[in-house]
């Protein structure tokens, strides 16, 4: 459980304004990733009905796409496709609300690295830009965690300790 606590506990900035700025970027990118990129290929409650996707089901075309990357992706395309789609659709929401921010950031970083180097490499800078943007955003969230404005902060030991100290006064 110690490692879970370490992963959950965010690094707090000196100024709450910095935390608010990070949270705004995190929320915007997380929701965009989940609603636009993730829900188009993964079955979640906010997926359009005309996609015909059941809950936690990945689009039929995506494993075929992943298999075309070759190497280890051709060995287990369903696994990698499911993990990539899950990272975007569910990981995006977790990141937006700052719940298990570091775990979701890690999953998103892995997905974006694959998207950059296996899917869009050689298609020019504009095609790489969305994946690179999400990669940069996830990378500093992997280090900082949710900051003050996220669910991780509310469930992490420092916040609980502060609250119990206040209630004992």
């Amino acid at each position: 459980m110690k490692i879970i606590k370490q992963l959950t506990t965010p690094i707090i900035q000196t100024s709450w304004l910095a935390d608010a700025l990070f949270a705004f970027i995190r929320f915007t990118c997380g929701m965009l990733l989940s609603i636009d990129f993730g829900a188009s290929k993964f079955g979640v409650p906010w997926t359009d009905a005309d996609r015909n996707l059941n809950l936690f089901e990945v689009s039929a075309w995506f494993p075929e796409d992943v298999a075309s990357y070759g190497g280890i992706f051709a060995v287990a395309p369903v696994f990698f496709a499911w993990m990539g789609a899950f990272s975007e659709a569910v990981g995006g929401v977790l990141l937006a609300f700052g719940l298990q921010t570091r775990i979701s950031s890690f999953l998103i970083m892995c997905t974006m690295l694959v998207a950059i180097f296996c899917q869009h490499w050689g298609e020019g800078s504009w095609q790489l830009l969305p994946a690179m943007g999400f990669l940069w955003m996830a990378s500093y969230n992997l280090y900082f965690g949710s900051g003050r404005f996220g669910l991780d902060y509310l469930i992490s030991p420092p916040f609980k300790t502060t609250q119990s100290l206040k209630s004992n006064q």
Partner: protein
Amino acid sequence: MKTLPLLICIVVCTILCNSCVQKTHLKTITFSVDMNQVDAVSKVGIRGDLKPLSWDETIFMTDDDQNGIYELTLDFHSAGPGLEFKFVNGNHQFELQDKDNRAIPFTYQPETINYTATFNNLDDAETVLQRKAN
């Protein structure tokens, strides 16, 4: 903590067993295109966005009864919302230049579709789409 590796194993096995992949349905589509109003007819075919079609290579149609109507039947395995395509003459000359692609919307079930059209004409009166669920 001991249950965590077990949980991860279960998730991985479930995913590897393909049960989390959307099911595709067989769409058997017969394309018919009337080329009687085209002057130089050769190598009539189709290009589109869904395998076995592609936008880079033509799949050729045939006119077995020599009536100027070229036909082709293809099987598609799809879970998607539809197919976009264009007919091609002379292997690489697309119809409907600077216009929208032809489109066949799919329903999420196996189906047999007959698509009848006139080359380079997207009018509703000239295009017939018949569908039957299998």
